[in-house]
């Protein structure tokens, strides 16, 4: 790809607003009017199709079970947060905590190991460098399903089924291709002059990495960090295979995604749908907050990663 992305966020802001200086000149042509209305129409319909189901689901947390089954378009009768409390008691709180425990370790570890590999591969030529780079990056091509059966027994052999550390290591390993790919291209863009100055000052390679390169790579680290947070938070297949109680006394360590599906299956017997909807709403809120706070970086990061 030869395109150069210049901070998509900014250029988007520039172009939006419709009423730029040129708008008056070209405006008024009827064809443009028609098109403008037409575009807004289609865009608005899709926006409604995105937002409506989400709001509808969140409203379901305030309904009664009978109301949910009765009519989809009814307005909630009781505006209390009972269902949220019940969902929390049903385990959403624990699932939340489990996911957090895993990610507190897996995300920093992913970033550290991924950047270390990417840095060496990006800036130190040695025999086999290109091979190793493609070796790391190729992992992103294959569906995780392929590895699932042997992976299960591999983790079992290490006695790490249904343990946090087992899942953490697996998460780090599976996040490696994307992290190396992204950070590799980022480290290549950093100026070499700073590096050379540090060498002249007598800094060791390790020191240069941690004290010069990592601070300079902060924007890249933030982008890739957000992706790893989103990716690992939303992971379902790996925990559902690796985080099952192995014996009767083995505690349940379900993660949030797994727990939600669990909750959904329970509702088949218990009929407490408001709890399920409240659980999903609780799970959605942190993502909404993360997304809205970082959406500029997310969109810019995604496009720069995939358009290169």
């Amino acid at each position, binding site marked *: 790809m030869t*395109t150069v992305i*210049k901070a*998509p966020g900014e250029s*988007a*802001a520039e*172009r*939006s607003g*419709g009423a730029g200086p*040129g708008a008056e000149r*070209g405006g008024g042509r009827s064809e443009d*009017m028609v*098109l403008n209305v037409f575009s807004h129409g289609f865009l608005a319909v*899709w*926006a409604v199709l995105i937002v409506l189901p*989400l709001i509808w689901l969140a409203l379901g947390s305030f309904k009664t079970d009978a109301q949910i089954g009765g009519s*989809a*378009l009814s307005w909630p009768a009781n505006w209390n947060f009972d269902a949220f409390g019940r969902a929390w008691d049903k385990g959403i709180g624990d699932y939340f905590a489990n996911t957090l425990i895993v990610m507190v370790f897996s995300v920093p570890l992913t970033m550290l*190991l*991924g950047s*270390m*590999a990417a840095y*060496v*591969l990006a*800036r*130190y030529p*040695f025999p086999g460098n290109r091979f*190793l780079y493609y*070796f*790391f990056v190729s*992992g992103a091509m294959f*569906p995780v*399903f*392929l*590895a699932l*059966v*042997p992976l299960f027994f*591999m983790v079992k052999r290490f006695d790490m089924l249904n343990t946090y550390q087992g899942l953490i*290591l697996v998460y780090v390993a599976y996040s*490696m291709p994307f992290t190396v790919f992204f950070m590799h291209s980022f480290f290549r863009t950093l100026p*070499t002059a700073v590096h050379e100055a540090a060498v002249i000052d007598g800094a060791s*390679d*390790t020191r240069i*990495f941690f004290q010069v390169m990592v601070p300079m790579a902060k924007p890249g680290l933030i982008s890739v960090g957000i992706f790893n947070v989103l990716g690992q*938070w*939303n992971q*379902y297949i790996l925990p559902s295979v690796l985080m099952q109680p192995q014996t009767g006394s083995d505690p349940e360590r379900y993660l949030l*995604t797994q727990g*939600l*599906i669990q909750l*959904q299956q329970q509702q088949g017997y218990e009929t407490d749908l408001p709890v399920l909807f409240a659980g*999903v709403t609780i*799970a959605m809120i942190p*993502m909404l907050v*993360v*997304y*809205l706070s970082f959406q500029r970086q997310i*969109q810019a990061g995604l*496009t720069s990663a*995939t*358009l290169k």
Partner: protein
Amino acid sequence: MSQVVQGRGRTGFIAGFLLAPLALYLTFVIWPYVQTFGYSFTNWTGQSPTFDFVGVDNYSALMKDEVFRGALWNNLLLLVFVPAVTILLALFFAFMVNAGGRGGAGGVQGVAGSRLYKVVYFFPQVLSLAILAVLFGAVYRSDEGGLLNGALIRLGLVDRLHPVEWLNEPNLVLWCLLLVVVWHGVGFYLVLFSAAMQSIPKDIYEAALLDGAGRAQTFFKVTLPLLWDSVQTSAVYLGIAAMDMFVLVSTMTSGQFGGGPDHHSEVMATVLMRNFLYFGKSGYACAMGVVMLVLTMILSVVTLRATRRERIEF
């Protein structure tokens, strides 16, 4: 770039930095991938440590497996429709967002509020598939409580006593799942295509406008050819996603690991998981994994070749 490589002790540093990442990656990613090939030639159950080498028995059994063949067919259908529908919608919306506004300096102006649209459209992308499964499970409910049936009944399009059994209707179930994937994906590709569109220099549009090109002509003759690389990449990504589908199918449809009704929504991944975790046929499941890998590779190569065009530099 100039490299700083002189001096001794680099080998130790390089090896030290690569050791841990490489060890993890080899242990948990590469080695299991390789093992899958080996196990696919055995009758391993997964429970017992012993197993026999059975040659290509698993593969020939796969060819005769009606359920797997049905799953393969469903995957192929998704493979065509998921990328086609998602990319067309994303391109359409991206063009609307970036060029649907009132004629500007170059006759190409984004609509008002284009940023807001992009923020909203992208949101499904950050939701986990588990959340999508619960959400759309509720949307597709087969009674008046489902959002879709509820709305259709209110509009008088569906009889209150005979609502549509979205996920239990053999001929509908796959398309219902397809809609979920499209709903989830359009925003991502819209953002991707928008970024590509914005990187196209404005003077190209101005030149096209001066030459008297209309908006449709501008799109097909200027925008689309310049976006082709992104479209191609997107097709491969979406194709890989369409080969998977495990989470949605296994959680939204009936049956052990989904696939119902009567295998009408079966995909290869659900058949694989059922054979592995439920029937204990690990070797057989590995053979399916290999078939999935081969198909994914063929898909990537074919898509990249079939859509190859001369690259336009700008």
